[in-house]
C-alpha cells in the first residue's frame, strides 16, 4: 500500500515573521540598552522638559522620541524598560507554564482525588479578581522583581492547568493510550511520552500568550507603583507619568503604550504561529 499524504508543507506565515521580528528587536534593545541608549535614562534636564518627538516643531534631534516632564529621554527610558518587561515575560511566563501545565497534566491524566483537589483549587482561584490579587500579593511580599514574578505565577497558573487538564483528558481517552498501557508502559511513562507531546502545541501557544500577559501585569503593577524601585524606568511607570501630562505632552504616554501593545500582540501571534509549527498534523 502507498499513500501520497505527507508531501504538504506549509511556510511559516507572515505573522510569525512580524511578531518574531518585533520581539527580536526588543530582545536586542534590552540586551544592548546601556550601549545604544543616547542618554542616561535617569538623567533629568528641566531645561529640556517635554520636548516633542523628532518630526514635530521644536524638537531636539538629540532626543529622538522627545522627553518627559522631568526632561528625561523617552527612547532611553523605553530601552531600559524593555529589560524589565522581557525579564518578567520570560521568567514569569516560563515558571507559570511549568507549574500550571504540570498540575493540569496530573489532574487530566491521573484523575481521581488529584484531579478533585486541583480542579477545586482552580475554581477557587478563578473567583479572585486577578489584578487585585496581584496587588494584594505585592503588598504582602513587598516590591521587587522576585515579588512580581511570584505574583504572576501565583495568579496565573490556573490558565495553564485548566486548558492542559482538558486536553490531557481527551488525549487520555484515545486508543493509543490504551495500547501503550497494554504494551506495559507505566502511568508516568504514558503521561510524559504519549500525552505530553500531544498537549505541547497548546502549551506553547499558552506560554507565549502568558508572556504577553506577564508584560501587561508588570505594566499594571508599575502603573500603580507596586513594581520595582520607583527610579528604575518601566513602561507601566512611564504610562502612569504620561497620563498626568497627556494634554501637554501626549508622546510620554503614547510611545510606551505602543511598545506595550505591540509586544503583547506579538507574543500572542507568535504563539499561534508556533502552535501550528509544533502540531504534527498541521506541520
Amino acid at each position, binding site marked *: *500500500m*502507498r*499513500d501520497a*499524504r*505527507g508531501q504538504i508543507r506549509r511556510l511559516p506565515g507572515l505573522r510569525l515573521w512580524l511578531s518574531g521580528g518585533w520581539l527580536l528587536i526588543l530582545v536586542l534593545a534590552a540586551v544592548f540598552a546601556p550601549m545604544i541608549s543616547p542618554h542616561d535614562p535617569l538623567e533629568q534636564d528641566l531645561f529640556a522638559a517635554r520636548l516633542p518627538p523628532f518630526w514635530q516643531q521644536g524638537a531636539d534631534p538629540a532626543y529622538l522620541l522627545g522627553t518627559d516632564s522631568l526632561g528625561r529621554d523617552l527612547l532611553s527610558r523605553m530601552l531600559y524598560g524593555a529589560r524589565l518587561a522581557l525579564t518578567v515575560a520570560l521568567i514569569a511566563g516560563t515558571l507559570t507554564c511549568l507549574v500550571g501545565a504540570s498540575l493540569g497534566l496530573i489532574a487530566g491524566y491521573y*484523575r481521581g482525588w488529584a484531579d478533585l483537589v486541583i480542579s477545586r483549587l482552580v475554581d477557587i482561584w478563578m473567583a479572585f479578581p486577578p489584578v487585585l490579587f496581584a496587588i494584594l500579593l505585592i503588598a504582602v511580599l513587598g516590591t521587587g522583581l522576585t515579588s512580581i514574578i511570584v505574583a504572576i505565577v501565583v495568579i496565573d497558573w490556573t490558565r495553564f492547568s485548566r486548558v492542559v487538564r482538558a486536553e490531557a483528558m481527551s488525549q487520555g481517552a*484515545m*486508543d*493509543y493510550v*490504551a*495500547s*501503550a*498501557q*497494554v*504494551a*506495559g*508502559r507505566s502511568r508516568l511513562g504514558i503521561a510524559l*511520552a*504519549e500525552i505530553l*507531546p*500531544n498537549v*505541547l502545541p497548546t502549551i506553547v501557544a499558552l506560554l507565549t500568550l502568558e508572556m504577553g500577559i506577564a508584560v501587561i501585569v508588570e505594566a499594571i503593577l508599575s502603573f500603580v507603583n507596586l513594581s520595582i524601585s520607583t527610579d528604575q524606568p518601566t513602561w507601566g511607570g512611564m504610562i502612569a507619568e504620561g497620563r498626568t501630562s497627556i494634554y501637554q505632552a501626549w508622546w510620554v504616554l503614547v510611545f510606551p503604550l505602543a511598545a506595550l501593545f505591540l509586544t503583547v500582540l506579538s507574543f500572542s501571534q507568535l504563539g499561534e504561529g508556533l502552535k501550528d509549527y509544533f502540531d*504534527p*498534523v498541521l506541520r
Partner: protein
Amino acid sequence: MSYLTIKDLTVRLKNGAPLLRKVSLAVNSGEVRALVGESGAGKSMIGKAVLGILPRAAKLTGGEILLDGEDLLRLPPKARRAKIGAKVALIPQDPLTALNPSRRVGPQITDRLVDILGWKRETAEARAVELLDEVHIQSPERVMRSYPHELSGGMRQRILIASAFAAEPKLIIADEPTTALDVTVQKQILKLIREMQERHDTALLFVTHDLGVVSKISQSLTVLYAGKVIEETDVRTFFAAPKHAYSRALLAATPKYTDPDGSLMPVPDSIISEVEQEVAAFDAQLTR
C-alpha cells in the same frame, strides 16, 4: 488446552449496575473465537477486562481470568502488566486514534519489544520492517519514519496489526478491527488478520457485531446479550442450527447478498423481552 480461560467474570459500574454477568469463555491456543452481540452487550468490556484497561467507571467485582493457567487478577500489578505485555496484544477498533499522532510510527511498533522484551533498538527496528513487509506495506522504512496522519486508515490498521504481532503474543484481542474501515478495505484487513493468525498460530478473540465476519474468520463463537453469555458453540453448528431464539433472530437479521430484498429482519420485540426475562431471572438467582 485453552490458553485463555475466563470464569464467572463480573464487571459492574461504580454504582453497582452490572456490565458483565458471570461471563465464562475459553479460547484455545491457535483458535479464533468470535465474540458477538449488539452494541452495549459488553463484548469490548471482556477484552478490556483481560487487558486490564477497564474504563474508570467500571470495576471488576468477581471471577477469574486465567492466562496460560495463571490467574491474572491475583498477580501484583507490575507482574501482571509485564505478563500481558509479553503474551497478549490488542488490535484496536479505531485505527485513527490508536496511533499517537505526535510520534513517528516506527518507535510505536518497537516500544514494546524494547521495553518489555528488552531487545536492542536496532534488532527491534529490523523486526518492525520485517513485520510491515509481512502486512504488505510497501517501502516499510519510509512508513516507519512517517507520522500517523500521513497514512490512510487502511495503512494504519495494517501497522496496528503488524504491531500486535510484533512480540509474538500467544493471544490477540481484536476489538472490532474492521468497523471503522470502508467495506473494500475491511475485506483485505480481515484476510490479513486471518493470514497472520494462521502463520503465527496465535489464539484470537475477535470482537464483532457482524455475523458475516464471524463466518469468514472464526471457528467458534460466543453470543452475548446484556453482559450475559447466551450461546456458546462452534461456527458450523451456529450457522446451521442456532440453539437460542435470540441467536436465531440475530442470524435472521443479517443481510444476505444473495437475497437483498428478503432477509433483513430486525430482532422481534417478543424475543428481546424473552432474553430480558432470562437475564432478570439470572440476576435474581445471583442475588438469592
